[in-house]
């Protein structure tokens, strides 16, 4: 776990004003480029266009083509050359255009990015950030809505991080870029345009990667989630008040490292937990989290840990995706099945 160490290239704390997650990510990239000449951005359409989601907007203009580079259209090539740049001591930040288009780079990721430090006994760490817009809920046609986190978190050597708030988008991306380990940075597309009052944290205030946060305290059961499902869980917790449930919500923020301490402590307090994510349930992050909670908190549990996840189907077409994505009702149904009658 590494903290951001670079000065953000700005002084004073600007007033908190509403910004989108996209703007916060853009600011994090800008501040990282300003703070450290080793930082280089590579990707498809990241230059004049500013990326298809505009996350790199203005960066080539401000820092030049050598710092924010439109590459040929080849994901393995982008990540493979970024590996070489990191081997030389640079700190590349790679943008994959969409979740499903990161797959051509999978071999580089699994066989080299995740292993170079290990292979060389620490002599050649790869400080590399791979930004991937991920997840559904944006009405995308096929190949534009995958939740690919399970592939990555199953690969030792990678950190897997995903912000759910505007503030975290900035802080976690700064921390990811400053990390000496490779970080798969999953950006929930459907939260890109979510807005909240925010100002960039000073580097000292940036949380290290690997800490979960309690977004909402609750006494009767805990929802454990991350990334795109956080707002849904918060909504569900609000709605649950009507049922007389006081639901807490934990935002993992980082799947690897997994903050088992925080999760276990919270679940011991409530005795009931539901893990919520939109990627398919089978073999997903939720399975791992539920297993760990069971191992750690068995004697505190009042009910089996349940999962609310996407169905085990290829990501559906846009006109049907609402049936796939975990929503408030499905979450509350799961909460209802936490063996309250025996309490």
């Amino acid at each position, binding site marked *: 776990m590494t903290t951001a160490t670079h000065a953000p290239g700005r002084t004073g704390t600007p007033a908190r004003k509403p910004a989108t997650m996209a703007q916060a990510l853009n600011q994090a990239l800008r501040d990282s480029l300003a703070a450290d000449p080793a930082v280089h951005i590579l990707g498809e359409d990241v230059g004049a266009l500013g990326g298809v989601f505009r996350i790199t907007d203005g960066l080539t203009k401000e820092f030049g083509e*050598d710092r924010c580079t439109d590459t040929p259209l080849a994901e393995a*090539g982008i990540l493979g*050359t970024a*590996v070489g740049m990191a081997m030389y001591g640079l700190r590349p930040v790679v943008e994959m255009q969409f979740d499903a288009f990161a797959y051509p780079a999978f071999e580089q990721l699994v066989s080299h990015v995740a292993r*170079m430090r*290990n*292979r060389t006994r620490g002599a050649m760490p790869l400080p590399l950030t791979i930004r991937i817009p991920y997840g559904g809920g944006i009405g995308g046609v096929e190949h534009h809505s995958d939740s690919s986190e399970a592939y990555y978190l199953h690969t030792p*050597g990678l*950190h897997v991080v995903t912000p759910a708030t505007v503030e975290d988008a900035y802080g976690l991306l700064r921390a990811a870029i400053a990390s000496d380990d490779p970080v798969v940075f999953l950006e929930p597309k459907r939260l890109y345009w979510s807005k909240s009052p925010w100002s960039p944290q000073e580097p000292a205030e940036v949380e290290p990667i690997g800490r979960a946060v309690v977004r909402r305290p609750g006494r009767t059961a805990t929802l454990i989630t991350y990334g795109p499902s956080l707002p849904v869980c918060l909504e569900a917790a609000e709605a649950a008040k009507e049922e007389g449930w006081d639901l807490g919500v934990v935002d993992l923020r980082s799947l690897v490292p997994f903050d088992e301490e925080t999760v276990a402590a919270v679940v011991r307090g409530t005795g009931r937990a539901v893990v919520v994510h939109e990627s398919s349930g089978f073999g997903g992050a939720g399975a791992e989290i539920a297993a760990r909670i069971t191992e750690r908190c068995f004697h505190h549990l009042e009910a089996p840990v349940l999962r609310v996840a996407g169905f085990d189907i290829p990501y559906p077409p846009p006109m049907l995706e609402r049936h796939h994505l975990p929503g408030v009702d499905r979450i509350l149904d799961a909460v209802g099945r936490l063996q309250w009658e025996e309490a």
Partner: protein
Amino acid sequence: MTVLDTPAWRPRTDAAPLLPDPEPYRLLGTPEAAALDPALLRALYGQLVRGRRYNAQATALTKQGRLAVYPSSTGQEACEIAAALALQPQDWLFPSYRDTLAVVARGVDPVEALTLLRGDWHTGYDPHTHRVAPLSTPLATQLPHAVGLAHAARLSGDDVVALAMVGDGGTSEGDFHEALNFAAVWQAPVVFLVQNNGFAISVPLAKQTAAPTLAHKAVGYGMPGRLVDGNDAAAMHQVLTEAVERARTGGGPTLVEAVTYRIEAHTNADDATRYRDEAEITPWRGHDPIDLLERELTSRGLLDDALRSGTAADAEEMAASLRERMHTDPQLDPMDLFAHVYAEPTPQLREQQAQLRAELEAERQS
């Protein structure tokens, strides 16, 4: 302006100068060889003989159970040695799994170069020490690394060239294509050396490509392709040195195809009789890289008994030392398994480390 004048319509580069020679370039035994520096020829000779001895010793070590496997480069020594000698100290070598000789010729400890194949770790040397990347097992995946490193060096204003090695089979991989394309677009200071040794395990070149030669592939990327006799150490050295210099002086990447032959089976574990005739090997035995060099040295009166026996003795000494050092068991600490996964172990890794430590402790007690 009509479409005929637009950048999309007009060729961006003239293809003719990029085309390889119709025949593999040769130097030894030609009139041009007379101009070759005797010191270079002697150095190449010494290294080739050493290299062949190294291959033989490493193969013997597999039979003695000291190496899990060894992919020999016997017959390809000229490519291996020339690759290492064409580079300056600040340059980087990106070897594939068959290129242990190039790695050793670049200065890596002969035992450390075998760590991967002995199986005590995945890489035995610090890549920074001799600027040699780890031997890469997933074919062609090291090529984009070389491009990225060369690009990074150029962005940093450093005088560094990367030379990346790959086999004929590896040229069919997507990473080969992507690496060459990136290198050409970025004009990165990289040299790609393809050793066309005729086979990818059992599959002959004809099933790998329909290209006129592998060197021709360069033209499609907008870089020059060079076709060289891969068993001619002097030609290999000259062509690679030129390509390295071209890269160093801003001329961009070059693709070099060395036409050579894999004399031995794919590895000690392979049975080549299943897919090739012994008769096919015979002409290549008559075109042996060490013989070619010896003939040149002899015809110029540069190979006396002292050089011959001195070279042989040096190779024997290297082999004896390798043998002796490889016959000791490496000291392994199982706790290392957890040491280099991340900069800091995750809480889960700490737990697993404690578990293994307890298991080892219990083992010791019983």
